[in-house]
């Protein structure tokens, strides 16, 4: 069978499974819609969290990003996994004990203020919308590249699928669909990685293959350093970014991860506090399977790509180059007219440009793997994009129905609240789809926003809310607003107002916009603490609430007001 048939077959089959699960797990109450009834096992929740967390960007783009940045790419690997340690140790168990449905719920109750709740809702909505637009675009790209239909149709089909199971199933439907999606995506990522590792290093485990030797007996990484140095590039295993900036970006990504509402909400779905802790461990284990394989895929990919193209005759390039030239992900321009490809660091003489996404998408073809593997990668990329989109849509619909409508109309019936939640989810799908079809040029830039904002807004007030009994509503509101305004200001200034000066020389203390969330977080902590010192302590019932969430006993299922 050819690639297209395999792709239709595997992607179609995976869709049938997702829809089947959605019908089987239809949500009947707000509790099931928001937190899956609180009855998900830690192992299943770990898998669902992993699928929720690993987006189209993790699946398609991250390995390629590392291919071209080498050691500097470590910020993503450590940043997007290290946050789970913070989540497990500092947030998940206490928020589970608190036992409501959302992050703004916690902020509103702990800081006994609807103002604080509204600030938190705005942050949650902004972070989730930024994120979901990118996911829909990912869905569209996969459809158009693999199924050879226009990108708009790809987005519409993706919207229909997500609409179906997020709106119908709520958190319950999403959780069990995500378990299936995790299995699809991790299998699809590992199969080509294992094959390529075998071919290059003779070791079937990619994590070991990356530290292994190539055919001539030299270590792969040393060989790669040499190849890149010959072409004028920096060494793969040494850094180009400043150390201070590396530290700041890694910290911002870690803290941002721990502050993302669609990740935090997952820990409300397990039955007990000890399950929330364990579930974070499982989640990181499942995420780490992909995150420790990605650096291997990255190094194998760039090594293979250079070996099969550099100094080769243009007429004799391998077929994958021709296939992917059609999508403009790779292009050859024989500038010096010698009929050969020169891949060089100097943009004036370089004749080959490779898009980062190709390392994963074309991986199976570069390694001459069978056609079904290509179809599998397409199904995996779809699973990654759909699972994240669904998780985000749920946060959006919950924020609207519960944190906004219910806060100001406390008497609303459960049936009506559920209907508003479904309507909000439907609205969010259409909104996300619109940005998938007409992507604003700055999608890549705004991702820095999502992490920076989560780091600078939520993380400090949640941590202080649990570990300090003195922090009050004045401190929390002032802290969130300071962190938010500072971070938005810095990013907007360098990314949009004056992008020409977005260079290390102009950054404050050499901190890039990607890493500025760490500074915003620091400011938030300081302002929160100082303002609280000069204003009255929180009332007794809040002090009791804090004492109560610190001990696991008596958690029970997530409760409504």
């Amino acid at each position, binding site marked *: 069978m050819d690639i297209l048939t395999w792709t239709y077959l595997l992607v179609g089959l995976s869709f049938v499974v997702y829809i089947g699960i959605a019908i089987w797990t239809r949500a009947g109450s707000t509790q099931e819609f928001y937190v899956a009834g609180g009855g998900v096992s830690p192992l299943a929740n770990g898998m669902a969290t992993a699928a929720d967390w690993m987006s189209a960007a993790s699946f398609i783009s991250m390995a390629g990003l*590392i291919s071209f940045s080498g*050691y500097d*790419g*470590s910020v993503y*690997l*450590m940043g997007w*996994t*290290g946050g*789970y*340690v913070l989540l*497990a*140790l*500092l947030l998940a*168990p206490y928020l589970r004990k608190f036992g409501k449905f959302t992050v703004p719920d916690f902020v509103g109750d702990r800081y006994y203020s609807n103002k604080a709740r509204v600030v938190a809702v705005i942050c949650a909505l902004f972070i989730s919308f930024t994120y979901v637009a990118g996911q829909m675009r990912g869905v569209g790209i996969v459809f158009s590249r693999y199924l050879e239909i226009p990108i708009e149709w790809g987005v519409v089909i993706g919207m229909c699928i997500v609409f179906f199971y997020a709106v119908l199933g709520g958190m319950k439907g999403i959780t069990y669909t995500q378990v299936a999606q995790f299995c699809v995506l991790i299998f699809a990522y590992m199969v080509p990685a294992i094959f390529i590792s075998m071919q290059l290093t003779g070791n079937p485990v990619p*994590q*070991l293959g*990356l*530290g*292994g*030797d190539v055919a001539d007996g030299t*270590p*792969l*990484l*040393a060989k790669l350093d040499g190849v890149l140095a010959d072409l004028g590039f920096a060494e793969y*295993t*040494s*850094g180009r970014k400043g*150390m201070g900036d*590396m*530290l700041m970006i*890694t*910290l911002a990504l870690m803290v941002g991860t721990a502050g993302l509402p669609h990740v935090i909400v997952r820990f409300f779905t397990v039955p*007990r*506090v*000890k399950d929330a*802790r*364990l579930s*974070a*461990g499982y989640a*990181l*284990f499942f995420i*780490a399977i992909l*995150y*420790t394989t990605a*650096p291997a895929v990255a190094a194998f990919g760039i090594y293979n790509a250079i070996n099969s193209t550099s100094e080769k005759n243009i007429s004799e390039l391998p077929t994958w180059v021709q296939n992917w030239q059609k999508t403009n992900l790779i292009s050859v321009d024989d500038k010096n007219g010698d009929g050969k490809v020169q891949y060089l660091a100097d943009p004036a003489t370089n004749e080959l440009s490779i898009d980062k996404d190709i390392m994963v998408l074309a991986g199976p073809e570069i390694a001459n793997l069978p056609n079904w593997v290509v179809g599998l990668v397409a199904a995996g990329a779809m699973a990654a994009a759909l699972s994240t989109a669904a998780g985000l849509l749920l946060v959006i619909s919950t924020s609207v129905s519960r944190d906004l409508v219910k806060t100001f109309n406390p008497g609303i019936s459960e049936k009506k609240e559920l209907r508003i939640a479904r309507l909000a989810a439907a609205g969010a799908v259409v909104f996300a789809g619109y940005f998938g079809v007409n992507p604003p040029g700055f999608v890549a830039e705004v991702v820095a926003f999502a992490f920076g904002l989560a780091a600078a807004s939520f993380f400090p007030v949640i941590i202080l809310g649990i570990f300090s009994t003195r922090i009050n509503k004045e401190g929390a509101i002032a802290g969130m607003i300071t962190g938010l305004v500072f971070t938005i200001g810095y990013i907007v200034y360098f990314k949009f107002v004056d992008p020409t000066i977005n260079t290390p020389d102009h950054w404050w203390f050499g901190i890039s916009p990607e890493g500025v969330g760490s500074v915003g977080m620091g400011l938030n902590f300081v302002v929160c603490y100082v303002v609280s010192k000069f204003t009255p302590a929180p009332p007794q019932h809040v002090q009791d609430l804090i*004492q109560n969430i*610190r*001990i*696991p*006993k*008596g*958690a029970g299922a997530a409760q409504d007001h």
Partner: protein
Amino acid sequence: MPETPNKMSVYWKKNLRTLLILLSVWFVVSFGFGIILVEPLNQYHVGGYPLGFWFAQQGAIYSFILLIFIYVIRMNRLDREFDVHED
């Protein structure tokens, strides 16, 4: 609640000490070995990996998983000891 406030503050202090120790390790394996000390560590090799590079792209992540599971075991034991565990 049968627990006295005093007993609970001992529980909370022990919890904070656990967090402090585990988060110190978290900091050292990632920010320490993976970024600040990466150059000196790269003088050593494990297989084909320079050691600092290994920490940044592999070792830190393995350590993170280990840290969470150590935390789970330690806290389950602490919860039982202070009789605040769930059924």
